[in-house]
Every structure is written in structure tokens, then in C-alpha cells.
């Protein structure tokens, strides 16, 4: 009876636990709410429209753009190169001798000529970096000590010397040794054994029988010691010699001009543009430069404008730099040409909003021959530089000057489907004398436009006083209405393109832009939102 009761108890408890252990997780409720909240705020100044690095302030606090860019450099590599060179030297024994341990049985000096390009004749080089890979084969049937010297290579007064023990040959296989010598900071006299050559250095090899050898060794006539020198990655820091009467042509090539990267449309009329084209010669050669072409190119709009100025096609003579024998090592010779709105079409070139400059320049060095007496020189860090210095005050007339940027956007999965519709409201406090319009384009991952969202209203320009200066800000409200369809597109948007177009107030007067002009923006969201939308 008791056992029967126990079974009933267990069954009862099992049923109870089974009934109550399964608790359901219910669906979430959903309902709509209307939200009104600030989302983002920002303050724009002129530094957000143009790179800070190009802006400078005038004494009257008006701003100017100063942009300096290097068009091209003529450096040591442009004049010549010392290619990797392999020199094989074979030293055969002319007589048979019985050499005792410690006996020198061979000694010879050799001249090695470098294959310097462009027929440049060097008599001196200070090596910045580079190596000599040495391989030595010996048919002598005893270990020998080879002392390899470059007597014309010195570093801090010490000659480059390498002394190594070379394994003995065994009759069928020569003894072999290899090593790499770092020749950084070595000075090379390149005038040969008798100081009457160019591009030539001297090597010396002395062979003695290993002093630890137990007996004399027979060095037979015809046995060889072979040495291979391989100059690898030799980069001089400084060279001297005669660089020849050479002509070079650089271009047509392009260089980046990135002042107007964000501007994608509209027109800009600048009051004044000044450009200084400066040549700075840090090389010890006379140079004659001719600018064949200088052109501003806007690759986005496929427009271009070539410089129209007397400098085009006319040679400019630039004297050689002078060595100082101190720091800095040279006094540059400079030549500057002023290109202004008055003597050229430079303003039209700048008003294209170029993103590239195309140049084509001819260079003639030593046009008068070897007048330096083989004392032309070049330091690696002192090239012949061509710089373009563009300067224009921000005194302008802008008409629909459009800045565009594309930025990634990714609505979180958590909120997908929650926003029903609503407005993005842009509140602006504008201190710039520009009217501005803003539009948005929602783009997919391939930057195809899903929808363009154009607002109602513009950002109004700050009023100008009698000095054409804005001293107070103007309030504006711009509303972007987002329909349900727009919101659907928004959820599929990967990138958003923002276009802002500026038009100066009071055209056709030139308006100066002053330091301190700001545009305060605040974006407020006014949305219908479904809580827990499925």
C-alpha cells in the first residue's frame, strides 16, 4: 500500500512540474510615438570649406589662400645613377713557388671603373648607403689569408680593409669565401691609381699562406685566386666631377593641386590672384630652364586652361649653387617669376578649380661647358626645385559654388523599420555673406542614387554693413521632408552625398571673407516612430 502511494506521489509531482515548467515568451507590443529631438550640431567656418593649411589671415582679419606646391625637382637621380656593378678579378700565379706559413705570395693593385650613366665624370663620391658583396675563390691547397683593400676608400681617415681566412682548395674544388661590406659613409676617390682618371677606384689584394699552417705549400703556376666585387644599391650623398653638357625634358606630366577638392560646381570670381613660380638651384651646375607648357586641369569637369605668360617658351638661366663647406651645405641660387592677374590669365586657371597642374619643362645643364674645371657637384638632399606659390585674397563672387562630400551611413538593424516618416529640420545661424542651399542624395553601395531629397527653404546670408562685412548672423530654417518611401530608401542607403551650394550676397561686388565668420547648424529630428516595429 505504501509503495503504491509513493508511485502516485511521484506521478503527481511529475505532472505538476510538466504543466508549469513551460512559460511562454510573448510577442512584443508595438505602438507609434512622435519624437522631437536634436540630433546633431556643428559649426562651420571657412576651414571646413578650404584646407586649414592654405588659409592665412591678413592684418584686417580678412582671409587669403596661400598654397605652395612643388611642381618638380631635378635631383641627383635625374642627373645620373650608379647602377649595380659586378667586377671580376682573376689573379693567376705566374710562377711556381714553395710558400712557407706566413709567406706573401701574391700582391697586386687593380683599377675598377664604375658604369656611371649619362657620361657623367665623377672624381669624388661620398657614399650615403651601399654595399660591396665580395666572393673569393682560391685554388691554393692550403688556407690562405687574403687582405682586400680599397686604398681610395676611406672613412674617418681609415682605409677600407678586409682580412679574411680563405679555405684551402682540394684540387677539384677551390676554397670559397663570401662576405658583404657596408660602404655607407665611405669617401671614394675616383681618380684611379695615378689620379688622372674618372669614375675609377682602386682595389688591392694580398695573399699569404695561413700563419697557422703546419708546413709549406706549393703554389703552382696557373693556380688562381679569383675575386668578385659586386657594388649593390650604391647611393651617394654627394658627388663631384663634370656632369656634362646635357639636356633633359620633364613632362608633359601632372602634379596634384588639392586646394579645391570639395568644390564640384558653380562659379567663382576672384578679385586678384598672384602666383610666384620659383626655381631654386641647389646643384653645382649652371642650368637653363624653359617652360614649354603649364596648364590647369579640372579632371572632374574635363576643363583646362593653359598659362598665357611671357615665361612660356622663353629660357631662364639659373646660376650654379655655391658650396658653403658648412651646414647647410649649399647656398641656393633662386629665380622667381611673378605671374599675376595683370600679366597673365592665372585667375582663369584658378577659377577652374583645378585638381591637377600639367607641366612640360626643358632643362639644359652646363650650357657653357666644363667651366667649373670638373668641380660640378650635387648633394642628394639639395636638388633643383621648381615651386609654385599661389596666393589670392578671399575676395570673391560665388555663384552656386557647390561643395560635395559623400559619407557612409548605416542605419542599425535594431531600428530598421521603426521610423515611419518625418522631417529633418536644419536650423542655421549664418554668419557668412553667402546664401546656401543644401540637398541630399541617398546612394546604394554602388553609389547609385536611390532618391534625392531637396529641402524647402535656403540658408540665408548674413547681412552686410556698409563696409561689405557681415557682423550679425541670420537665422534660417530648412526642412527636409522624408516620406515613408524616402525612409524606405534611407534604410537601404549605404552612402549619403551632401551638396552645399553657396552664392554671395550683393553680387557683382567682390566680398571679402573674414576670420571668424561661422555657420552654426543644428539638425532636429521630427519623426513618427514605431516602438518595437516588427
Amino acid at each position, binding site marked *: 500500500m505504501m509503495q503504491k*502511494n509513493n508511485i*502516485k*506521489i511521484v506521478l*503527481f*509531482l511529475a505532472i*505538476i*512540474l510538466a*504543466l*508549469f515548467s513551460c512559460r511562454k515568451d*510573448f*510577442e*512584443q*507590443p*508595438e*505602438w507609434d*510615438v*512622435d*519624437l*522631437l*529631438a*536634436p*540630433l*546633431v*550640431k*556643428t559649426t*562651420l567656418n571657412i576651414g*571646413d570649406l578650404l584646407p586649414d593649411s592654405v588659409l592665412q589671415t591678413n592684418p584686417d582679419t580678412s582671409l587669403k589662400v596661400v598654397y605652395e606646391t612643388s611642381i618638380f625637382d631635378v635631383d641627383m637621380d635625374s642627373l645620373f645613377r650608379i647602377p649595380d656593378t659586378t667586377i671580376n678579378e682573376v689573379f693567376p700565379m705566374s710562377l711556381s713557388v714553395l710558400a712557407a706559413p706566413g709567406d706573401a705570395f701574391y700582391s697586386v693593385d687593380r683599377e675598377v671603373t664604375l658604369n656611371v650613366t649619362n657620361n657623367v665624370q665623377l672624381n669624388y663620391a661620398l657614399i650615403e648607403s651601399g654595399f660591396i658583396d665580395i666572393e673569393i675563390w682560391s685554388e691554393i691547397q692550403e688556407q690562405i689569408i687574403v687582405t682586400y683593400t680599397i686604398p681610395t676608400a676611406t672613412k674617418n681617415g681609415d682605409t677600407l680593409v678586409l682580412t679574411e681566412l680563405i679555405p684551402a682548395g682540394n684540387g677539384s674544388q677551390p676554397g670559397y669565401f663570401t662576405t658583404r661590406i657596408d660602404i655607407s659613409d665611405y669617401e671614394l676617390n675616383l681618380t684611379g691609381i695615378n689620379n688622372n682618371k674618372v669614375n675609377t677606384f682602386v682595389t688591392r689584394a694580398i695573399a699569404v699562406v695561413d700563419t697557422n699552417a703546419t708546413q709549406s705549400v706549393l703554389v703552382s703556376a696557373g693556380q688562381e685566386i679569383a675575386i668578385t666585387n659586386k657594388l649593390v644599391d650604391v647611393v651617394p650623398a654627394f658627388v663631384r666631377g663634370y656632369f656634362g653638357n646635357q639636356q633633359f625634358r620633364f613632362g608633359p606630366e601632372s602634379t596634384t593641386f588639392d586646394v579645391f577638392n570639395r568644390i564640384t560646381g558653380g562659379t567663382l570670381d576672384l578679385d586678384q590672384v598672384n602666383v610666384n613660380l620659383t626655381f631654386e638651384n641647389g646643384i653645382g651646375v649652371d642650368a637653363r630652364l624653359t617652360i614649354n607648357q603649364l596648364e590647369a586641369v579640372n579632371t572632374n569637369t574635363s576643363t583646362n586652361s593653359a598659362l598665357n605668360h611671357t615665361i612660356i617658351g622663353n629660357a631662364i638661366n639659373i646660376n650654379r649653387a655655391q658650396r658653403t663647406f658648412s651646414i647647410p651645405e649649399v647656398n641656393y641660387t633662386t629665380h622667381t617669376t611673378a605671374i599675376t592677374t595683370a600679366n597673365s590669365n592665372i585667375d582663369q586657371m584658378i577659377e577652374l578649380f583645378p585638381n591637377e597642374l600639367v607641366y612640360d619643362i626643358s632643362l639644359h645643364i652646363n650650357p657653357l661647358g666644363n667651366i667649373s674645371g670638373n668641380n660640378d657637384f650635387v648633394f642628394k638632399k639639395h636638388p633643383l626645385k621648381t615651386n609654385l606659390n599661389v596666393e589670392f585674397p578671399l575676395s570673391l563672387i560665388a555663384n552656386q559654388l557647390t561643395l560635395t*562630400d559623400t*559619407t*557612409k*551611413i*548605416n*542605419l*542599425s538593424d*535594431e*531600428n530598421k523599420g521603426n*521610423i515611419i516618416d518625418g522631417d*529633418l*529640420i536644419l*536650423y542655421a545661424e549664418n554668419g557668412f555673406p553667402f546664401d546656401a542651399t*543644401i540637398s541630399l542624395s541617398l546612394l546604394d553601395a554602388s553609389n547609385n542614387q536611390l532618391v534625392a531629397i531637396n529641402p524647402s527653404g535656403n540658408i540665408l546670408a548674413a547681412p552686410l554693413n556698409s563696409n561689405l562685412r557681415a557682423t550679425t548672423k541670420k537665422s534660417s530654417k530648412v526642412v527636409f521632408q522624408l516620406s515613408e518611401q524616402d525612409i524606405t530608401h534611407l534604410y537601404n542607403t549605404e552612402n*549619403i552625398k*551632401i551638396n*552645399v551650394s553657396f552664392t554671395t550676397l550683393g553680387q557683382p561686388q567682390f566680398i571679402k571673407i573674414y576670420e571668424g565668420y561661422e555657420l552654426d*547648424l*543644428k*539638425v*532636429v*529630428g*521630427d*519623426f513618427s*516612430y514605431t*516602438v518595437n516595429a516588427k
Partner: protein
Amino acid sequence: MMRFLILIITTILFFESSQAQYNTRYFQDSIQRLSFSSEAGFVYGSSVMNNDFMNKFIYGGRIDRTMKDNAYNKLNTDNNRLGGDLTFNVNAIIPIDTLFKKTNMALTFGVSHTEHIDAVFTDDLFQLAFDGNKQFAGEEAILSGTNMNYFAYQKVYFGINAITQKHGVILSEGFNVGIIKAQEHVALTIPKGSLFTETDGKHIDLTLNYAFNQTDTSKNNISAFNGFGISTQIYKDFALKNGDKFHVEINDIGFIRMSKKALEYKADKTFHYDGIEVNSIFDINDSITNSISQDSLLDNIYTSKKQGSYGIALPTTINISYTKTFNQKWKAEVGVFNRLLANYFPYIYTNTTYYFSSNFLSQLHVSYGGYGKLNIGLSAAVNIKNKVQLYLGTNNLNAYVVPKSTFVNSGFIGIKALF
């Protein structure tokens, strides 16, 4: 902000809840018998949200404009309440012949699971949660006086029960002592608070004097051990000479001490929010969505945050009833029930029982108060061959019939096996 408020309300109502029945002693034995029983019950209600609204909120579905407007019509600044309980227990009664020279005694053992939620909230908070802040543009939404409590725990209890007879009335008395394992606790108190939305939405000011306590959020399922406590229950029947009786019962005298992993957030300041600062209009990208999708503002709306143990008192319940037996067919009970520290409104009830036979009865329940208003309920109980007792009922039959006009829902079921 919106999501935070929604979170509060959602948290408040997510759990279906209980403490439904106040008299389930349908069949009383005159002697102790070995028995095992199990009961489960729930109750949830609000003075604002009718059952139509609450059912959608709890079980899922769309809360539409009409439902919200109906709720708004019931808002009462000083007395917007909601609450609920979910209980489940398994109980054993083991007779013992004598104890302390008393006869007809039994030991009681059991385990139970309890979840409880209660809240009091302002009109503005409710409207803010269900319609957003736009309606408050240029105004303050008042949050002061909001309070919310939620806890879940499991309990092992034991006690002694005695059955006596006096004036022909079967009387029961006894006590239980329970050891509590806390599963989860969340409490929010906002003595003073408001949310101001600038007319154009250019800024929002959240003024808050609040305290928020929460046990370890990394583990809050039924196996979580987030504290311990003690609760006690005592009850006793008193016989009257005319055969009627009083029943007095006090439950949940006790406390829970939360573990050291619990967190407490506090603030007493105004938080000003006027948008996320970006460097440029061209950097807007996902700042907009982040400001919507993440409670980046709310992550920082506290001035002190500390981790450590704290204690809470259990919401003690008091139940006093008077039962009059008219004859073998009819019996009536009138009583009052109250729950302390639980934003509870005193609950007055009557139970009228009709015995179709000695083993089958039905009971009509009429009550007012608690987390809702007027309640009409019905239950039935059957005793099968004096071996198994079953009962099933609700104190809110009207919730199923006219959900748009009623504010509380409840249900309970029980089974008892006698050996």
C-alpha cells in the same frame, strides 16, 4: 529618452503576474492527511490601462490611437498605478500525531516561485511613453513621484499546521518560514523629475532626482543567485459561537538582501542635451542614427554609480476575512486585503459559495481595489472521491467579457492529491 521611458513601462508590464486568489480553501478536512498540492496564479491590473490595452501590451499586438485615448481618459495624476504577480508553488502536508502535546498537527514543506511588479506613475510619463515627447514641445513633462519595483525570487519553506474544531467549525492555524533565493530585482524611484522639450526641439532638459537599483544584469534567469532573504507567513482562524469564523493571515514578513554585484545609479541634476557635436556637416553620417538607436544620452544620466549590496523589505500582505455559513448549500465571506510597500490600493472582496454537493461547489467573487477597480469573478472546485481536489477560477471574469471596460485580469488553478 523615449526608449528609456518605454523600457521602464515595458519592464513594468513584461511579466505576467499574480497573487490572484485570496481564498482557495474550498474543502477543509477535519483531520490531517498526507497531501501534495500545487497552485499557480496570476493577476495584473492597472488603474489606467484597461484589459484590452494590457492584453496587447503583455501578449503582443498593436496599441492603437483609440486604446491610448481611452487610457488617457483614466489618468489621475495622483493615483496612476499598475501591478501584478505571478506565483507558483508545490506544497506537501505531512501529518504528525502530536507535537508539543497538541494533536492533529502536520508539517508543511514547499517550494515556490514569485514574481511581483508594481508601479505608480504620472500622467505625463504615461503619455510620454505612448505618444512621444513631441506633444510636450515647449512644455515640461512631469515625472515626479514615479516609482517602480520588480522582483523575482524562489523560496523553500517549511512550517507547521494545526487543525482544530470549535463550535462545530473547522479551524486552521499555523506558520511557515521560507528561505529566499533572489533571482532579480529592479527598482526606480523618481521623487522629482521633469523632461522639457524646447518648442522647436532644439534642446531637451531632463531634470532628475532619482535612484535606480538593479541586480546583476548579466545573469537574471531562474538559476541566478542575486541575493538571499527570509519570509514568514502566519495564519489563524477564530470560531464564533454562531458557527461563523474569522480568518487572519499575514504573508511575506521578511526581507531580501541583494548580492554585491547589484548596481545603484543616482542623480540629482539637470541633463541638457542639444545634439551630438560633429566636426562638420559632412560628418553627419551615422551620428543621426546613433542618436536614435543608442541611448547615448541615457548612458550618462547619473551622477553616482556604485556596486554593492542593498536590502529590500518584502511587500507584506494582510488578509482579514469573515465567513458566514448559512447552511450546507450557502456560505459567504467578506474580507479586506492589503499589500504594503507595493503601490497597492486596499482590496475589499466578497466570496459567495454555493455547494452543488458536498464535493462540488462554485464561488462568486466580487471585489474592488488593488491594482484595478471593480472585479467580478467565478471559480469552481471539485473533490473527487476524497482523493483529488481540483479548482479553477478567476477573480476577473468581466476581463474576458468586457476587456475594454475592465482593468484587472487574473486566473488561478490548483490541484491537491490526498493520501
